């Protein structure tokens, strides 16, 4: 599965020429380009692909023109980058936010709604980056004010994208894993759901409560010896000199 699922959230093949022209030229500084990039983000949210590079161009426009900031666009960009874990994408987006919008202030001090939302998303992202997948789902489920539900509502199939990504990462580290561990990591509610997911979506086998993951380059941990590549070029100067001296 790891090989078939392409993960190019930085420069995806889906990127249209119009967007390529904007982010590759000076048009990326034109405040009017924000509308085009916003529409493109909406398209990414619906069609389940991710163009982090173009989304950063949008955040950059917001950085330079704070009066244009749309809170829900900023949070949508962050949620989209979150699906790329583990990667620096979420951080790269955060770096472009104004410090005042990037995290809520100390308790008791009023901060903007955006800062509150970004703080929530940072907490969620930290679970994914630190591979605390069970906590990620627990945080999502324990959403008493429906904040996370609101923040992720525009991103089609958010939970499914995360689940598939976790499974992919598991396949890169595990040869076998117990169904119960996977249940908490995939945020599923019964062993039956796990069995269904891994057999149908991942094509793995389950035997006696243990999920068998096919061999791949990542989960083999083969012994290797790193040898030095020796070629003639490395000695070219010595050879040249000795040639010149004898000649």
């Amino acid at each position: 599965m790891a090989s078939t699922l392409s993960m190019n959230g930085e420069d995806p093949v889906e990127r249209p020429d119009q967007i390529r022209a904007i982010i590759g030229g000076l048009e990326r500084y034109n405040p009017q380009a924000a509308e085009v990039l916003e529409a493109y983000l909406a398209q990414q949210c619906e069609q389940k692909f991710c163009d982090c590079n173009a989304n950063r161009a949008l955040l950059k426009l917001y950085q330079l023109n704070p009066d244009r900031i749309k809170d829900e666009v900023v949070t949508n960009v962050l949620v989209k980058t979150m699906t790329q874990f583990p990667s620096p994408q979420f951080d790269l987006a955060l770096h472009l936010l104004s410090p005042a919008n990037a995290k809520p202030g100390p308790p008791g001090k009023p901060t903007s709604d955006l800062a509150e939302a970004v703080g929530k998303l940072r907490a969620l992202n930290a679970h994914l980056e630190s591979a605390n997948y069970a906590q990620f789902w627990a945080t999502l489920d324990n959403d008493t004010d429906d904040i996370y539900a609101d923040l992720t509502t525009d991103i089609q199939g958010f939970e499914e994208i995360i689940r598939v990504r976790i499974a992919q990462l598991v396949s890169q580290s595990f040869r076998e894993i117990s169904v119960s561990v996977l249940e908490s990591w995939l945020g599923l509610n019964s062993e039956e759901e796990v069995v269904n997911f891994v057999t149908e979506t991942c094509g793995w086998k389950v035997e006696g409560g243990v999920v068998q993951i096919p061999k791949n380059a990542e989960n083999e941990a083969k012994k290797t010896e790193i040898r030095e590549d020796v070629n003639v070029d490395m000695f070219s100067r010595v050879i040249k000199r000795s040639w010149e001296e004898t000649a």
Partner: protein
Amino acid sequence: MSAFQQGMAPVRAMGDVDSDVEEEALVADYKEQVQYGEDDMAELDQQALAQAADDLQARLVQAAQPLDFQATLEAKFQSYDNYCSLFHYILNSEGPVELEPPSYYWAWDVIDEFIYQFNTFSTYRARIARQGNNEEEAQFLRDAPNTWGCYSVLNVLYSLIQKSQIIEQLGAMKRNEDPALVAGPYGTKNLYRMLGYFSIIGLLRVHCLLGDFSLALKTLDDIELNKKAMFARVMAAHFTTYYYVGFSYMMMRRYADALRMFSHILIYVSRTKNFQKNAQYDSIAKKNDQMLALIAICVAFHPTRLDDTIHTALREKFGDELLKLQRGGPESLPVYEELFKKACPKFISPVPPNFDVPESNIDPMDHHLSIFMEEVKTNMFSPIIRSYLRLYTTMDLKKLAGFLDVQPDELRAMLLVNKQRTKQVRWTEGGLLEGEWVNTSDLDYALQGDLIHISEAKMGRKLVDWYLRNLSRTYA
């Protein structure tokens, strides 16, 4: 360009009666430094009226001079206006202006000083807003939101790049074609070509200061980082380029690439140390230490063998710190913070601060640091995990969790984090952002349920280097 006032004559700093005399002295001094030939001057005189040429040359020289550290706000505003009128003259005259840059270093010095002043001005403005106790200056700054504005600075740099068609020229050079064919009427002139070239490096820096690390690296797409590059002839430019490229790589978690950049330039500096003049060397020494601090951070994230010269310098300068980073755990966090603060660029905000609510203005450095520290925290147990795994070929997860005094689930997360981070994008060819996913660690493992299978790549002996060194030693 909106910020450019039409037909502005350069006005001198207020209350500076002797500035004419001083400026003359300065010009004379500089001319001597760069061994300005009398012939060149004579030629210039023929091209324009003697007075006008002198004035313009003086302005060119002036633009490359550092502003006094304690310059008043008026002087900073004045300096901005001077830059605007100079760049306006260079960019918006009818056709290319017939001026020769005073020296090879001049174009770099101008761009460097221009960005440095933009940087310090933004920092100063933010501090006035944050402290909120200097109403007079705050009002002054509030009334002029576009002075040293981010859009104007970017505009100058991009305009110089476009006018000089430097991107096209560099492309032609890369294809081994004659750059003059694509240089256009402006780009064939030294003045434009060099300003355009160093504006690219200026952009790298500005993007990095604003926290846009990938765009910073993207900016250098057309410049090949090698000894033949134009910037390599100007030491300060060479140095600055590698610092910002290395830093941007680090922020993109490309530690192997960051280390390659820092190592390259530090080795180069150590080799040229003896020819550098004192004043220049001071600023280089400071940046040198900053890069060593960054190397410490990168090598903690990505353990690797360093060049001997660098390793020695690192142990001398940050020996204790490095040890703490390499040990990991919560105790390493303050050390990461300290080193980052010491070595990061002076980040700025691209928009004017809010003077009415002083406490709403957070230092951009704290912002970037907090994001960076998130990743540090995520990885802080990796050194500990690695040191244990090296001891075994197979290990039971619950047993190891017992050694480390953590829950099995926590250990699973740590194992995943460490394994995921050993894969990094590493540059092989093409633009700086290009690269391949490679496994950067000699330690690998996979889990079979709760059984950890560990394999360590063995390093074969490296003999080529040994042979070459001894051959040259014996037969030199």
